[in-house]
């Protein structure tokens, strides 16, 4: 079970109910629960949707799944009139290595996810929402199922919610193990009972989504932020963060730090401070070697590159990404060759095989790095890995290909010498493994 942590620099908006028993519906209500959805409904049927979307736009909230797309704008893309039913889809298929923030939300504040789903539904004129949790999160699914049942029992869900004349239903759904399903179109495929392979875009989900209807799909943290934003006001929320990056977000700091945990920090908070102050610095007084700043898919940063603000734009400028907010800290003892291999092994395992550059690229990078790691690498391998990764970029339906290529490129570019020294140092007496041997060993 997650251990809750705390630090004075935290700004607790999303996490303000954590540790207070808010999974209980009465406690949630006591802590201002279900007030935001009623506030929206009080705007009246004509103004409600536009008020929600305007407030979300003003908040500067950007998608917490990793892409950082402005949430208010996403909601505004859904056509007002649609022949097919519209849907709200909550992405709780949290699977990016280094990321465990939604885990804590489902555990500590499940009703915030429900209320946020209702708000998104009211904003786009949908009558049905789905909350999709990864299959491994069974105990959290149980918590969500109970929360949904409690909300129905109070009449908060179902027919005529809060006297609005609007019906809204929520169904919770379990996955069965697939990183790829965290991609929005693959998640819709999974929810339709299919293999989780991505769909080509356009059309985007806002126009053609689940069951062919207009669909808003948001990360669980994004959705859970909505009630807080409506209650405190869009501008007030925006002010907590940095320019064009409104509010706060949950950062999961893991790896070689003294106090790993999920911390809520303002957008734009300094990464170095997050590691050295908030998470207590490098474990056992060791030296920092590298930081993977936003989940495994984000290019690695060197110690001299971490004096940077944690928001989508500043991280982009630093040549990496804010991603899903999972900061993984590596101390001086880590072999980057081994770490890069473990990273690509993950993406190779999770590639759905739909797009050839991703399927073949991840597999060949894994094979090549495997022989490097095992001491049978050739000097050309580093350049070859870079070549493979560069040829995956932008050539796949979904971002998994990029997610595998980007960190790989980061490792081989920033730690090239370590790879070369490793190959040199491990060569003595070890014959180079041939392509035939690699294929045979598959």
């Amino acid at each position, binding site marked *: *079970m*997650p*251990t809750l942590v705390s630090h004075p620099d935290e700004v607790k908006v999303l996490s303000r109910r954590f540790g207070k028993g808010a999974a209980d519906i009465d406690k949630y209500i006591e802590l201002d629960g279900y007030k935001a959805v009623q506030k929206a409904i009080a705007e009246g049927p004509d103004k409600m949707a536009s008020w929600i979307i305007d407030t979300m736009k003003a908040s500067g909230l950007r998608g917490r799944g990793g892409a950082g797309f402005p949430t208010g704008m996403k909601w505004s893309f859904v056509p007002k009139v649609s022949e097919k*039913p519209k849907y709200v889809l909550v992405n709780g298929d*949290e*699977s*990016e*290595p*280094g*990321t*465990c923030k*939604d*885990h804590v939300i489902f555990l500590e504040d499940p009703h915030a996810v429900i209320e946020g789903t209702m708000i998104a539904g009211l904003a786009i004129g949908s009558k*049905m929402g789905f909350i999709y949790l*990864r*299959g*491994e*999160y*069974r*105990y959290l699914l*149980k918590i969500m199922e109970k929360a949904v049942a409690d909300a129905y029992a109070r009449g908060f869900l179902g027919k005529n919610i809060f006297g609005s004349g609007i019906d809204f239903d929520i*169904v919770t*759904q*379990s*996955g*069965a*193990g*697939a*990183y790829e399903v965290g991609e929005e179109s693959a998640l819709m495929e*999974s*929810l*339709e*009972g*299919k*293999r*989780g392979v991505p769909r080509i875009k356009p059309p985007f989900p806002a126009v053609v989504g689940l*069951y062919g209807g207009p669909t808003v799909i948001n990360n669980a943290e994004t959705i859970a932020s909505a009630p807080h934003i409506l209650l405190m006001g869009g501008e007030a929320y925006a002010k907590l963060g940095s320019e064009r990056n409104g509010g706060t977000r949950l950062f*999961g*700091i*893991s*790896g*070689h730090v003294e106090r*790993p*945990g*999920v911390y809520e920090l303002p957008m734009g908070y300094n990464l170095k401070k997050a590691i050295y102050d908030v998470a207590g610095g490098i474990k056992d007084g060791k030296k920092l070697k590298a930081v*993977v700043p936003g989940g*495994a898919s984000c290019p690695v940063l060197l110690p001299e590159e971490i004096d940077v603000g944690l928001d989508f734009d500043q991280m982009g400028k630093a040549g990496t990404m804010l991603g899903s907010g*999972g900061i*993984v*800290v*590596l101390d001086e003892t*880590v072999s980057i060759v081994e*770490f890069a291999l*473990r*990273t690509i092994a*993950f993406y190779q*395992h*999770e590639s*759905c095989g739909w797009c050839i550059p991703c399927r073949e690229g991840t597999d060949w990078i894994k094979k090549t790095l495997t022989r490097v790691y095992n001491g049978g690498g050739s000097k050309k391998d580093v350049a070859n890995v870079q070549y493979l990764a560069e040829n995956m970029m932008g050539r796949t339906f979904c971002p998994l290909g990029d997610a595998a290529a980007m960190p790989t490129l980061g490792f081989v570019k920033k730690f090239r010498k370590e790879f070369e020294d490793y190959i040199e140092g491990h060569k003595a007496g070890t014959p180079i493994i041939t392509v035939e041997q690699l294929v045979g060993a598959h």
Partner: protein
Amino acid sequence: MSTITNSIFTPETAARFDHLVTLYPVKRSALVPMLLYAQDDIGYVSDAVVTEIAQRLDLLELDVRNVLSYYSMLRTKPAGKYNVQVCTNISCMLRGGYEILDHCKHKLGIGHKEVTADKLFSLEEVECIGACCWAPAMQVNYDFHDNLTPVKVDEILQTYREGKGKDVK
């Protein structure tokens, strides 16, 4: 949706499936969770499970198998009563995930995706389970265990051996 006669599932699971298919605009949407719940009930996705689920959802068995082969938690062979799943992905690896995996291999005397002779335990090396900040972590069936040390692992395995382990379903 009428109840399937001679269902292979327990009455509770069969009733749950009868209800599950009514929740969605399209019946097939129940397929992925249904396969997982069926596995919880029977132990693995057997041929009989595929047949009954196909029947319940008006799908070809081929459609069911096509989906079955995609999801990593679904298996077509029995696992142990307690399936020990050790995460070795980056955050766990940095805090000793591989040592935990090796310790489990040694203690249980089995490797990846193998089952002990008494069928009590099986072992799997798994990808990130979303417990990165409490690493290293593992799941025994659906139950999470984190901040692991070899000593803690021994205690956990012993709890299950004595039948006192929590079993979330």
